[in-house]
């Protein structure tokens, strides 16, 4: 039986009341999304790990000092912090770049070759590396919306508010980001090779609805 998970709001209340376990759950729930958001901006694993710490340290300070504003979603709030820190860092690095500019090798690679065939793992990792490159090639405004919406879990309205544009502009940018990605992916059929996905993977929702 599926157990009910406490909401983010409930966990925050428990954490503020002194339950450290609640923070551990919040961190577990959101760390991958936040880390991916940062990685796609700074493209350096060590820097991303540092910025993830900075992000959650800011969150700890805000929550424990009673300054956390319950109005919005925690997921959007934490990703806004991460996004801002990552953008600041990226701009600083652009002025004085680090030597490590490799965007394709180990940074995202957490695959264990023992878990699947070595060849399949390599193909998958190459595909992911190429997709990350394609994201980097998007116009900045499109890339920003894509990261905020897909990994930051911010709604289109929240993105519009955060970036100072209308919701239609945010939606349009996301639309063109996906169109651009799709075009580039279609030009490289490996992205739609069904062999890349497990045979028992859940079908996309449209197929389920139509059945």
């Amino acid at each position: 039986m599926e157990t009910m998970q406490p909401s983010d709001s409930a966990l925050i209340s428990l954490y503020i009341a002194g339950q450290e376990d609640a923070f551990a759950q919040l961190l577990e729930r959101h760390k991958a999304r936040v880390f991916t958001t940062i990685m796609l901006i700074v493209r350096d694993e060590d820097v991303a790990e540092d910025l993830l710490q900075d992000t959650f340290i800011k969150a700890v300070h805000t929550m424990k000092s009673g300054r956390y504003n319950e109005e919005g979603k925690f997921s959007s709030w934490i990703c806004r912090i991460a996004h801002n820190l990552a953008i600041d860092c990226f701009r600083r690095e652009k002025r004085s770049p680090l030597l490590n500019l490799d965007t394709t090798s180990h940074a995202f690679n957490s695959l264990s070759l023992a878990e699947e065939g070595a060849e399949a793992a390599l193909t998958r990792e190459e595909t992911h590396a190429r997709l990350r490159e394609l994201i980097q090639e998007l116009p900045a405004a499109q890339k920003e919306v894509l990261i905020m919406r897909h990994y930051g879990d911010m709604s289109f309205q929240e993105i519009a508010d955060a970036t100072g544009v209308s919701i239609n502009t945010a939606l349009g940018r996301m639309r063109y980001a996906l169109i651009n990605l799709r075009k580039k992916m279609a030009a490289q059929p490996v992205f739609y090779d069904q062999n890349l996905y497990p045979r028992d993977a859940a079908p996309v929702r449209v197929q389920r609805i139509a059945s």
Partner: protein
Amino acid sequence: MIKTFTHETLLRYVYNELPAKEHQQVEHALLHDAELAASCADLLLAQRALNDLRRAPSQRTTDSILQYSRTFLRKE
């Protein structure tokens, strides 16, 4: 009559941002509009590909954050 939907509406649908009534309308339209269903499938495939990029930070970083939080509590 099947209502037509914009790509922006479809985007909000796949990201679960539509009000319930509009969400249902899109689902109904998907059953009868092959072109809309194909566009939706494209979006869902793109979503799946993007989901695959999600990666977790190292355990060391996670532990450092938790340690910081516990230490911060003791300072208070």
